[in-house]
């Protein structure tokens, strides 16, 4: 409609200066930017001082920039109020004898039993930041994942000491426990625990070394079918306990696998938790597996084996007994 008229208008005077101040030819700039969008004829010609324009643009930012950095504590003392939003680290904190300093855990932290007395702050993934802040922690332990990154950033921004740990392998467990020991001022105890776990694992490894290593399939989830892969401590424990994870070559902790691939790799033994074992035995498709037909579906104690913890030595012993039962004498 009136567009042609606008195009006919004389070119903008871009050089105008008024009262010695810096002037931005905003109308001209907007006109050029929005020319193709067609709102041009209605756009009033605005000339605004640069500073003023910046203020308008930055206003929404300014609203939240003013965050209270009151507790950006410079010195880090031994924490007395710990929030642990990861069942594994909660268990570690208790093992280090610092359980009484916990002021928050996730909804899922059930071990040790004393953990249930710690206030439940909800989920450990995408945690409720407000609930964490309200617990007034001086140390926040998070599970390190992309999903938790925004929360970690938010909490750090508030001056809280946030440590994100991802513990999938035995080596990560040892490093994590030692780091945690240092953080909570229980370094020697952490080192001792790590040594104990290592020595138990070593003795299990020695005991099973001469025994035949069964080819083991560890389903992590049934639908979609996920296997325990080489990136999981459980795969390492099976290796120590005298088995060989058929998916140890996959680097993820729990990679998706196809059922055909499981058939192809033809495990001697299936090692799983009680619920999965019941499903597997009830389902006709699993009967295609030699291990199922020969009733070699072994059931481990989920509570003991499911998480990397200071009880990994005991877990390895129990797995070794499952894989290599010795006749009671």
């Amino acid at each position, binding site marked *: 409609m009136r567009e042609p008229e606008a195009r006919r208008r004389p070119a903008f005077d871009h050089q105008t200066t008024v009262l010695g101040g810096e002037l931005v030819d905003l109308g001209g700039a907007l006109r050029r930017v929005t020319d193709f969008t067609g709102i041009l004829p209605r756009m009033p010609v605005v000339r605004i001082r640069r500073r003023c324009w910046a203020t308008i643009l930055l206003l929404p930012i300014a609203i939240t920039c003013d965050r*209270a950095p009151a507790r950006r504590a410079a010195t880090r003392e031994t924490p007395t109020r710990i929030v642990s939003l990861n069942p594994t680290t909660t268990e570690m904190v208790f093992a280090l004898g610092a359980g009484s300093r916990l002021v928050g855990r996730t909804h899922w932290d059930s071990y040790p039993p004393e953990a249930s007395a710690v206030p439940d702050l909800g989920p450990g993934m995408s945690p409720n930041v407000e609930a964490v802040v309200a617990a007034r922690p001086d140390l926040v332990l998070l599970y390190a994942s992309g999903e938790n990154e925004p929360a970690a950033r938010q909490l750090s921004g508030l001056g809280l000491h946030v440590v994100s740990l991802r513990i999938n392998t035995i080596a990560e467990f040892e490093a994590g426990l030692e780091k945690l020991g240092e953080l909570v001022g229980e370094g020697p105890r952490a080192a001792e625990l790590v040594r104990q776990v290592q020595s138990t694992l070593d003795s299990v490894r020695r005991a099973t070394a001469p025994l035949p290593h069964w080819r083991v399939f560890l389903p992590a989830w049934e639908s979609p079918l996920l296997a325990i892969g080489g990136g999981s401590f459980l795969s390492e424990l099976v290796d120590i306990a005298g088995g060989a994870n058929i998916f140890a070559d996959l680097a993820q902790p729990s990679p998706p696998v196809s059922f055909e691939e499981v058939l192809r790799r033809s495990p001697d033994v299936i090692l799983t938790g009680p619920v999965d074992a019941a499903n597997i035995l009830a389902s006709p498709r699993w009967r295609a597996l030699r291990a199922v037909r020969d009733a070699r579906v072994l059931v481990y104690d989920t509570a003991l084996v499911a998480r990397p913890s200071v009880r990994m030595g005991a877990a390895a012993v129990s797995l070794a007994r499952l894989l290599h039962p010795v006749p009671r004498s």
Partner: protein
Amino acid sequence: MRRRAVLLWGLGLVAATIAGLAIGATSVPLRDVIRALSGVGDPTSVSIVRAVRLPRVVLAGLVGASLGMSGAALQGTLRNPLAEPYLLGVSGGAAVGAVIAVTTGILPVPLAAFGGAAGAVLLVLAIGRTAGSLGDTRTLLMAGVVLGAFANAAILIVLATAPADTVRGALWWMMGSTAAATSFDIGVVGMALLLGGAALILLGRRIDAVSLGTDAAAALGVRPESTSRAVYLWASLLAAASVVAAGLVGFVGLVVPYLARSGGAARHRGVIAASGLIGATLLVGADLAARTVRSPAELPLGAVTALLGVPFFLAQLRRR
């Protein structure tokens, strides 16, 4: 919109904002909330109110206003009450970008989401233009819907092959949330709302003409093509900024313009402005519900908007 309705929604926004600042996973007495807002009092309360709740409330309000205005402008221009801000591919494109970014970690999520949204919108507009004039809304709607289906397929393939521990993060992104509101998010949406909101309101009269039909618009001296193009771009910018900051929050952009029109607004200038107000009110309220109903766990904001919005919508529909 009638003055009374504006007043009611305005009061609603004020009430929702106050409730949003005062209620949360932890209880902070109202008096402490007010003191905390100005930075005095217990440092924990100050942190909770100023650094956790305030950015959320502000972001929810801005996102709600953006989606509401975007939806109102699109419904008018497309002459279709089923039009919504994500219609032209914003949600699909942004979701593909974000899901790839979340599961692979190769790009910052906001950047990937915005890139995806912009790419999808430009593609839809290009299809609309090649297939005929942009004034022909059917081609455009088809292009948007088909691209959405394509994006869905791409998302499913990415999710099916992604590492299991990243899938949840991607799903959460798609369900929408203001939980991690940062000043960057607020800046992005605030700026988009400032520019896009103003542009759409300024376009209001031309949308009035276009909404009467192509011929009527031409007779009134309004070029439907350039008006439509401007509305599509500005409305999509608003939607894209919202998506970048808060993920996919559905339903607001669909139902809010209807509420604005049933509140008595007839001309698009009024409908668009009122939709901004109503959208802000609804989303601040929905966000409050999302984080308090099952506290300390959070519900997905995108689902709560529909849960709260549908009864509203049905009540209005019955009254008609």
